């Protein structure tokens, strides 16, 4: 009798499962446009997580399926894409697109509908909306976590005046607003402060303006295309002998293809990063090896230091929350994530009340000794000398900026 009921039980569960279908996770990811190079690498990491989870039998006995659309880094497209994901594709769970600019427009939407959203490397995008089911995965939380290291390095080199150059987009403006306050508190005098429209391509005039103001510290907050153009402009016309350190918040100088193409023009720049070789999070090196093999095939960023581990970690957090709560209910998952510390390949993650990391781990590093057209040089520690935070520090800053560039 027991065997028959067991057989029936199994049969029914199998039928039930077969009818339940996969768990659908939906997102948009910039695969073209300003953040495209980073987005492609991030997406690959998420797909790796989906494969790993399905190989282990899925979640709650169901397979996981990821639907990702290309939002072209265009904030005007994301509301439409997420509405489609929810109303047409009927996904169960959401992940935010990589980056502040594509994420900002969907914050009101998820708050209105009471949905859990896992943030993806955005900066302070929940500041005005204050959604309580938002959990951002990035090593920073507020402006201070980002700019403290940079400003301290500048002051150590003797800097007293500061110049700000920021893109007029959500990310750069959030960071610039915070950084300006901090600079004032640190006693620095602002001698130049300019915003430029996103996707500007010619920075020669702006660099000239900066040079004329003779600042000690130049804090730049830019998106990838502009970061490249700014580095090239600095290389071409120079930013002046007064500058002690240059950089700080330039997105894109962490993407391997960009690092390779800029080569020696990167030298001397002090910029933020999330991971450089030598930092030992448990599990990350094994992940990077596996990632590298897949990335070569898929023709995306083969080193994958910046975004892929963090995107894989988003998957890991969903995995832990779903397995612990045995549900897909957004409120229960949000409660779990809010209250628990989760183990991931980028270290343990715990969230603060604003949905950002409670303990930031932003790295500020200076490029040194970089040569042209060589991607493998970045695999070794030493090309990015860590100046901050103290627990990962590998060297002191070389100033002034033009001297550090070897010019």
């Amino acid at each position, binding site marked *: 009798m027991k065997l028959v009921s067991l057989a029936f039980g199994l049969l029914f569960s199998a039928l039930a499962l077969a009818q339940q279908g996969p768990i659908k996770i939906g997102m948009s990811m910039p695969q073209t446009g300003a953040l495209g190079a980073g987005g492609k690498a991030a997406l690959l990491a998420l797909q790796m997580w989906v494969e790993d989870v399905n190989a282990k039998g899925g979640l709650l006995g169901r397979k996981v399926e990821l639907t990702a659309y290309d939002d*072209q880094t*265009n*904030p*005007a*497209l994301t*509301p*439409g894409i997420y*509405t*489609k994901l929810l*109303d*047409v594709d009927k996904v169960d769970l959401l992940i935010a697109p990589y980056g502040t600019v594509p994420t*900002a*427009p969907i*914050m*009101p*939407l998820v*708050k*209105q509908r009471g949905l859990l959203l896992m943030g993806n490397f955005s900066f302070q995008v929940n500041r*005005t*909306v204050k959604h309580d089911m938002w959990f951002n995965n990035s090593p920073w939380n507020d402006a201070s976590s980002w700019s403290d290291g940079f400003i301290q390095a500048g002051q150590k080199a003797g800097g007293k005046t500061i110049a700000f150059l920021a893109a*007029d*987009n*959500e990310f750069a*403006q959030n960071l610039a607003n915070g950084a300006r306050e901090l600079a004032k508190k640190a006693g620095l005098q602002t001698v130049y402060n300019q*915003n430029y*429209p*996103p996707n500007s391509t010619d920075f020669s005039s702006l660099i000239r303006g900066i040079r004329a103001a003779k600042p000690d510290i130049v804090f730049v907050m830019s998106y990838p295309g502009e970061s490249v153009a700014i580095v090239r402009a600095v290389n071409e016309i120079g930013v002046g002998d007064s500058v002690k350190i240059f950089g700080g918040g330039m997105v894109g100088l962490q993407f391997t293809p960009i690092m390779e193409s800029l080569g020696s023009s990167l030298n001397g720049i002090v910029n933020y990063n999330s991971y450089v070789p030598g930092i030992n999070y448990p599990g990350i090196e094994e992940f990077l090896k596996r990632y590298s093999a897949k990335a070569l095939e898929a023709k995306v960023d083969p080193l994958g230091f910046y975004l892929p581990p963090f995107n894989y970690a988003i998957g890991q957090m969903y995995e832990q929350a779903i397995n612990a709560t045995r549900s897909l209910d957004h409120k229960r998952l949000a409660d779990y994530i809010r209250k628990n510390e989760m183990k991931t390949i980028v270290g343990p993650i715990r969230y603060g009340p604003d949905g950002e990391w409670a303990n930031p781990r932003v790295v500020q590093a200076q490029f040194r000794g970089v040569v042209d057209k060589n991607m493998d040089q970045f695999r070794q520690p030493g090309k990015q000398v860590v100046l901050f935070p103290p627990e990962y520090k590998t060297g002191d800053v070389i100033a002034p900026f033009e001297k550090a560039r070897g010019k």
Partner: protein
Amino acid sequence: MKFWASLVVVLALVVAAAFTVKNEFVFYAGYTVLLYVVLATAWNILGGYAGYVNFGTPAFFGLGAYTGAVLYKAFALPLGLQIAAAALMSGLLGLFAGALTLRLRGIFFAIATIALVVIMETAFINWRYAGGATGLQLLRPPPTAPFESYIKMLFVVMAAMALGAVALARYIQDSWIGRGLRAIRDSEEAAECSGVPTLRLKVFACTVSGALMGAAGAPMPMYLQYIEPSSTFNLNYAVGALASPMIGGTGHWLGPVIGALLLSSLQQYVTVTISNEMNVLVVGVLLVVFVVAAPEGILGLAKKVGARWKR
């Protein structure tokens, strides 16, 4: 009487749909289709009746959208007042810009309208309170009863606006204003010699056209819950507003409606099934084909077919 009766019937159908159809995405896409009906009808008043082809739609639409957004941010103004204020602002823009530029002919006027769009966009990029180039996130209020979903409410609002625009266009077309505009289109010199007050009529058409486009723009920030300059002042609005009447037929108020319903629905379909870029390609190709091969638009083709049938 038949006209007004059909308007009421259409509105009733729309409201009924809003309370019966469940899938929200239909209304989300349908809103855009109705938006283009309004924009196309408004464009046709100056571009079709008077023959002054222009690319200025984004300037009026965008100003209307930002008026709504800023008033909502500052005073939490309800949607109805936002629409009224937007119509006023864009109407004024139409009045002033029209008075300045409508002395120019043909291509010069068209290029001047592009200049207007870029200048408006640049102005809003530099206005921090309205979000600058970064943009503004807006949390919309709950929908007014009896509606349960804000998107469905916006859909009905836009349908009402479309019907209103059509009624206005029809009125202008059949009145002495319409006759004057047609005279300008056929030969401006002859019209002036006959004593038609050409500049005043053109400025009037520009004002009305602008006001309608502004009104159509006001719900946009509530629809997206986000507004930023480059997508709001995008020349793609100019394309849709211009292509729909050119495809549907510019002489009659029905032309822009047919053109917008067909073109915009096709665009929505292509965007969802293929890609966002393809839909712009579809518009470009259709525009070129119709402008070259069927200058009278679909209405013109229908007339020719009808004439042949009668034989």
